[in-house]
């Protein structure tokens, strides 16, 4: 299974998470988002970039409650809450945003 982009292919697992984390770029993010029926706005990018930074620092994709708490801390409670993040990513901010961010499925998402 793979995403097709400008003639190149990027492999993904059965749930759509890419397997080679190094293969990610912004065009691919748009493509994965389109697959998820999400149109990327600045607000979406803010969360995706946040996740990529979190992964860079800690080498894990955070569970949803950890993500919400961390966003609350850095961006304030207007954004660090369930409602806001589920509005952006209806099928789960951690799962969907991580997929778009080219990260593995969150650790501790049960």
């Amino acid at each position, binding site marked *: 299974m793979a995403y097709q982009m400008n003639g190149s292919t990027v492999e993904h697992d059965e749930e759509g998470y890419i397997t080679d984390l190094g293969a990610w770029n912004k065009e691919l993010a748009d493509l994965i988002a389109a697959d998820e029926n999400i149109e990327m706005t600045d607000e979406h990018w803010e969360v995706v970039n946040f996740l990529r930074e979190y992964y860079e620092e*800690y*080498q894990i994709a955070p*569970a949803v*409650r*950890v993500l919400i708490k961390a966003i609350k801390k850095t961006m304030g409670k207007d954004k660090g809450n369930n409602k806001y993040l589920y509005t952006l990513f209806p099928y789960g901010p951690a799962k969907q945003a991580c997929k778009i961010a080219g990260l593995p499925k969150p*650790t*501790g998402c*049960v």
Partner: protein
Amino acid sequence: MSEQEQEFSGSDVQKKFLYLNRRAPYGTIYALESLEVVLIGAAFDQDVSLAFLDDGVYQLLKGQDTKAIGMKNFSPTYRALGDYEVTKLYVEKESLEERGLSIDDLMEITYEDEDDDWAEKPSIQLVNRSEFAAIMAAQDVILSF
């Protein structure tokens, strides 16, 4: 929180879990598996602590570089434990000394104390062998990796 929810998440059902880490970080999958179980288990609101003894103390060494063995360096993930409200990392003093190490050789791992205006505090606590025995005796569940 409703009364019903309180009944289910009340302190009477909270157990003390200790994850015991005794092996070097690479070469076997134990250390990484333990860490993943801790992160997943953290969703269940239990009283969780981790212990590092014997070669397990190497898991917390700073400056780990795994390039040459082609494995992912997962050591930065220990620093995320505070976000998962896992804030007690016991390290046995004797195990460090037997390996010529001290606490200065370990990563700096901290958490933010919600009950103390989010003050940053160290997660690692150095304990000696007899203190460690007491910590183990106080647990409800011990998982050894």
